[in-house]
């Protein structure tokens, strides 16, 4: 049987490629962590790890928001300023009038859902729509917080500074990754959602609503954005309209580093969370332990990002060659 005999070799090649791709974010995380521990051995403690990784939690949420949108072949350029809005609401309205605050956050999620519907129904390029929205969100954030300020709700601050036997950011990252993995990779509807990215026509022909799938993904992205804003606020204590701006491009890099693709519905939530952690460490902790002068830091972040992503490309190439 020709097909039967030909298959094992091919599939095992594909398997090893997939394994390599899945291992990639972990390898880069270990490399970056190793470098930090080598330069600054004191960071290898519960307290040190807590300090190193705590700000990776909001980035992980933001990355999952981006991943939701990228799963259906779109790109979200507004996630950064959206986080500014959700953090701003949590630091102002949510403290003064909790019910109104919750409603405002739900409203933000509803706007995200509506954007998903708009992009699908009018067949608009997501990049354009979300780029436009990024300015809208920034405007909203600035009118909420003309000057940096506000105050994180007490319960949020307490939650973000929980002291546990193991560093709480690690626990949170694991829980986030696990929940996202179950939702997207294990749940029966998750397969359909990823299928939309792979072959939307096939999914529609099987009788699924593409509109519902897109709205679901954008809603999830909106919720993740709220969680990112709140955790960021809980860690920093006060809000600033521009506090999330840098996140937009970091989240895209993190999804890609985590083994995702821009199109085709190939994503990995666990990889993305690990990728977010790696990028956070590379972009901040590594630079501060290296004691680089501040004027060089932004440039250095870029160089590290390129290096890390090039590594992924290299691994992909080796995998294909074998």
């Amino acid at each position, binding site marked *: 049987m020709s097909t039967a005999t030909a*298959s094992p070799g091919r599939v095992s090649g594909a398997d090893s490629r997939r394994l390599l791709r899945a291992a990639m974010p972990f390898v880069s995380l270990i490399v970056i962590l190793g470098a930090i521990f080598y330069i600054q051995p004191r960071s290898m403690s519960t307290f040190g790890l807590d300090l190193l990784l705590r700000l990776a939690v909001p980035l992980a949420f933001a990355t999952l928001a981006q991943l939701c949108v990228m799963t259906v072949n779109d790109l979200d350029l507004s996630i950064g300023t959206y986080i500014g809005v959700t953090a701003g609401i949590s630091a102002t309205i949510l403290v003064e009038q909790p019910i109104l605050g919750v409603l405002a956050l739900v409203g933000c999620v509803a706007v995200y859902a509506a954007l998903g519907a708009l992009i699908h129904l009018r067949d608009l390029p997501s990049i354009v729509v979300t780029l436009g929205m990024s300015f809208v969100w920034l405007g909203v954030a600035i009118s909420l917080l003309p000057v940096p300020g506000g105050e994180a709700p007490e319960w949020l601050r307490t939650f973000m500074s929980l002291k546990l036997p193991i560093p709480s950011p690690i626990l949170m990252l694991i829980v986030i990754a696990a929940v996202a993995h179950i939702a997207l990779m294990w749940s029966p509807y998750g397969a359909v959602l990823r299928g939309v990215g792979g072959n939307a026509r096939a999914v529609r022909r099987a009788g699924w609503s593409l509109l519902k799938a897109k709205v679901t993904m954008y809603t999830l992205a909106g919720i993740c954005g709220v969680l990112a804003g709140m955790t960021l606020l809980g860690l920093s204590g006060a809000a600033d309209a521009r506090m999330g701006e840098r996140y937009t491009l970091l989240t895209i890099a993190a999804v890609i580093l985590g083994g995702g693709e821009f199109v085709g519905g190939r994503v990995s939530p666990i990889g993305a969370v690990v990728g977010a952690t790696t990028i956070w460490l590379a972009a901040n902790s590594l630079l501060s332990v290296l004691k680089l002068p501040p004027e060089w830091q932004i440039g250095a972040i870029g160089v590290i990002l390129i290096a890390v992503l090039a590594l992924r490309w290299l691994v992909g190439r080796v995998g294909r060659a074998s």
Partner: protein
Amino acid sequence: MSTDGGTLAELGSVKKSFGAVHALTGVDLRVDAGECVGLVGHNGAGKSTLMNVLAGTLAPDEGTITIEGADRTPHYSVTAAHEAGVRCVFQELSLCPNLTVAENARIMHPHLGGLRWRRQAAGLISSELDRIFPGHGISTKAIVGDLPLTQRQMVEIARAFTVTDSPAKLVILDEPTSSLDAVVAGQLLTFVRRFAEEGGSIVLISHLLTEILGSADRIVVMRDGRVVITDRASAFSRDTLVAAMGHVAENAVESTEEERDRSALPLRVRTELQHGETINLLAHEGEIVGLAGLAGQGQTRMLHRVFDGARGGAEVRGTVAVVAGDRQNDGVFPLWSINKNVSVGSLRELVRRWLVDDRAEERLGATWQDRLAIQTPNMDDPILSLSGGNQQKALFARALGSKADIILMDDPMRGVDVGTKAEVYGLIRKEAEAGRTFLWYTTETEELEHCHHVYVFREGAIVTDLPREQVTEQKVLQASFRDST
């Protein structure tokens, strides 16, 4: 309503138009329970459109859809078709390449849920694969995109027969064997017979008439959006079937110059043998060379090699232009006018004083609008205002309007209507007589009749070369499939 031998599905005077093209002009079709209906006809006869209507993916402009005696016409959709037990395996693959085999099975079954859905989906698809293609060797955990085309098609076929809450009463197979090898295709046809004997219904579309004659109980012949003949399969022979389809009789294009001595002509293209190849491709001045075989057997790659010239391992004497077959992906510039789309192939010749000469550009466009009868009021209109066939004409104009000696054509007649085809064939022959060389990848056997020489591809290499007088559909097909059976 008894299902035994009764009418399962019935389409009544179904009409469907796409713009000015009447794909279906009032078609009646009946499928009985326990019956395998063979549906044949030329490309563009409306077979696929009709099946899309039956499967619920296209809403007809007019007509009725009746399933098991119930009129389902209003709100007929994919979901409604599924509930009624109508499944379809489409010509182009409908699997998600980023999902596993089991996950793809799940997409078909909306009610497959719960914690064990993954195991259930895997069980469904693997038992169906075992039933249809024993010894298939496909893992349900494999990502579909990693599987070779044959196995993907096997998965898609098996998926159509999986049953959860709604039954599979009628399965439409649109060219199911096009990328299966002979052994697997045989397994499928055996299964089709068994399925029909157990009371299921099948609509089988195939360009391989022996498959239709061997498997169908009844044959429906379509031509130009209508059903022209319906009869028991035993009433047809291969020849009467071909005649009914209105096929150009096999020797319709008489070879005007039987005795061509290839070697006497100046050489234009010669490929070097790469690993695993035993025959190299030659093309001479004034020749139309056909690249045949099943779809995706390395023909496009060969065209790329010739385009790359020395870098691709081919000796190429002359300039090269390409007519893309995949219009959307590598053909048109969607935001440009028709004229710009045509002239982009000859910009170098249109330059005067370092700038493109507008008037020369217009003249070029007008000439080719005329010669190819591109149907548009204005060549400055956007290219997307044209129908698919006319867009393809613009792509032909781009290649033929350039000064290229060698024209590479990558299955360029996809989606082109019969009338246009005839015009373009004539033009190609005329241009070849004027000294141009054509390399023509085609999946339609009758187009090979226009070629002086045909190379048949299988698994990435040329397996046979045939001079024109030896080209028959049977020979090409024989060479296309592995010899082992």
